[in-house]
């Protein structure tokens, strides 16, 4: 029995057929599911995780982006047993998917890894994050302060004046495992990655002693809706 391996959800049918093959060297197809479209491949077995497979998955999503403006990548390994099951799943999440598609339309993602020592987070930056070094108030205030600090990426405060209007949306994760302190994901207009890298290079002196490593442009992997409740 064949199953449908899903690569991406789209707002519109791509302008041309998606070239190449998928993770199992299968032909790629675009199907309509209600008001959404999905790029799928028919696979006989569920693909296993391997360097070749994850790169193949990413390559398909990138090729889709070349001929479609609003693309949401689907997580590796998502397989449905038949078209009806996929249609049901997309219908359940239609509202959140449509909202995310509007956000990512004509945009792409840049990824930053922030490296440094944990001590590089200054008390001043804690306050900027809404978390004073010595939180006062009730348990609720202290909880919110801890949560704000947990999601705060220190380098981003210093980067914002340089990146300015290039960044349409931002997601950040703190890792808390020095030297890898955090990852940040920026949604920027498509075609603006060279401008973004140039702005980042200008910002480097202001970031010291923190270091950042940039990669991209990526499909908007970090700007997809969270898992369904």
């Amino acid at each position, binding site marked *: 029995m064949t*199953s449908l391996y899903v690569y991406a959800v789209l707002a519109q049918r791509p302008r041309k057929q998606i070239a190449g093959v998928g993770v199992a060297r299968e032909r790629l197809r675009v199907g309509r599911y209600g008001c959404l479209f999905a790029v799928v491949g028919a696979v006989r077995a569920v693909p296993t995780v391997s360097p070749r497979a994850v*790169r193949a998955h990413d390559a398909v999503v990138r090729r889709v982006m*070349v001929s479609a403006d609003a693309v949401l*990548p689907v997580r590796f390994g*998502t397989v449905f047993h038949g078209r009806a099951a996929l249609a049901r799943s997309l219908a359940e999440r239609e509202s959140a998917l449509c909202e995310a598609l509007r956000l990512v339309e004509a945009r792409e993602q840049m*990824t930053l890894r922030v490296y440094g020592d944990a001590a590089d987070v200054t008390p001043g930056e804690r306050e900027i994050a809404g978390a004073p070094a010595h939180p006062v108030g009730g348990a609720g205030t202290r909880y919110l302060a801890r949560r704000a600090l947990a999601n705060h990426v220190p380098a981003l405060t210093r980067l914002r004046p340089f990146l300015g209007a290039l960044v349409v949306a931002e997601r950040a994760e703190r890792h808390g495992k020095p030297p890898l302190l955090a990852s940040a994901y920026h949604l920027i207009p498509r075609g603006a990655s060279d401008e973004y890298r140039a702005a980042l290079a200008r910002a480097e002196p202001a970031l010291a002693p923190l270091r950042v*490593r940039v990669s991209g442009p990526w499909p908007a992997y970090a700007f997809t809706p969270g898992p369904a409740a």
Partner: protein
Amino acid sequence: MRQPRRTRAQELLATDDSLLDVVDHVLNKGVVLTGEVILGVAGVDLIYLRLSALLCAVDALERTSSR
């Protein structure tokens, strides 16, 4: 000599991103649909523990080579 500006398609398709970054994006991000997903929770956790350690190692290597 000035480098010719890349087209949008070239920027997207000629990626030299590291396998670690690809793994982080493809396995850890993206739309989660209620289909069959082949990675068990324990497997994912294991991958990310290693991924985090490897990303740290990449930074250490880059600093060593730049000295």
